[in-house]
């Protein structure tokens, strides 16, 4: 009896203390989801399997998706998400061929305008019956246009290496 009473008393006392402390030390919930969404490309391309970046961010925040989910974001986005979530991942597993660009094969393009309607960043220009073109600076390489093209005139290719973009190779480890 004494044991029960003393234990209960102790528990109540400590619980009260903690309750008071919780009130004084309260913090707002971490707005993790919004922060994650800010890291994602935001092009809503759907390659991750979610409807859009907001849904992907929500899944990431719930821990239901892997940080490696975003192909257009590449390694950089994966790293940023992993850092935000505080998890370590093996980055070597993430395929990253560098940024990709969509290119239009001019001899096959029929100027149907279907691709430009789905491009999430409005990177495709061209009027009906005109050969379409892609603005390099705006293309995120998401590939949404690829499936839309009835003549398979669009392909992805790695961004060409130019002088200012050239990187010294990492020295071979002895």
């Amino acid at each position, binding site marked *: 009896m*004494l*044991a029960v009473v*003393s*234990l209960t008393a*102790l*528990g109540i006392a*400590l*619980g009260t*203390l*903690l309750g008071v*402390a*919780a009130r004084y*030390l*309260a*913090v707002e919930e*971490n707005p993790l989801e919004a922060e994650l969404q800010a890291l994602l490309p935001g092009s809503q391309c759907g390659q991750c399997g979610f409807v859009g970046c907001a849904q992907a961010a929500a899944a990431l925040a719930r821990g239901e998706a892997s940080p490696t989910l975003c192909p257009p974001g590449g390694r950089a986005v994966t790293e940023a998400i992993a850092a935000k979530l*505080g998890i370590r991942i093996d980055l070597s597993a993430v395929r990253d061929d560098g940024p990709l660009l969509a290119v239009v094969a001019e001899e096959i393009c029929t100027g149907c305008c279907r691709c430009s309607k789905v491009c999430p960043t409005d990177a495709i220009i061209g009027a009906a019956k005109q050969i379409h073109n892609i603005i390099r600076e705006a293309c995120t390489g998401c590939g949404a246009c690829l499936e839309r093209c009835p003549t398979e005139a669009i392909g992805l290719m790695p961004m060409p290496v130019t002088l200012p973009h050239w990187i010294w190779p990492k020295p071979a*480890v002895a």
Partner: protein
Amino acid sequence: MKEYALMMIGAALVNNVILARFLGLCSFMGVTTRIDTAAGMGLATTFVITVSSMADWAVQNYLLAPFGLGFLRTVTFILVIASAVQFTELTVRKVSPSLFQMLGIYLPLITTNCAVLGVALLLVESRLSFLASALFAFASSLGYSLVMVIFAGLRERLALATVPRLFAGPPIGFIVASLLAMAFMGFSGISTG
């Protein structure tokens, strides 16, 4: 005075919680990937050990011993420790959200860190005075923090080393721990001598 000093050195270095008593190995291997994290963990655990040891001393001497409730010791001690951990968790979350994130699951797990309960139980056995037990607990946890920080530094360097695949990961961690324990054996004999 000299006895206190010797006792504290003994608790911190000679009978180090981690390296000589092999307590708290979970957090020793778990949160020592970075010096900052390990130092944070050390601080949090120092606080928990010191506070809960003092509280446990009071509980032991004014509640359990007078009423003959020795059989409730473990339960009550864990209750006290859990409360202290909860408090620490709230504080850390408020003061340093990044540390909170880095410590992750290991912060609430201080509750089950056997170093905490171990020190409290050791104190019961040694029947020290309140001041002495507070100092003993504090010194023990300082020794814990010291080893945590040292080990985190070593592991930061190990992370950059090209350890053979056979030993990479936990094996090399334990080898380092054993070498560290070997080095700490140099202190043996201080408190008794």
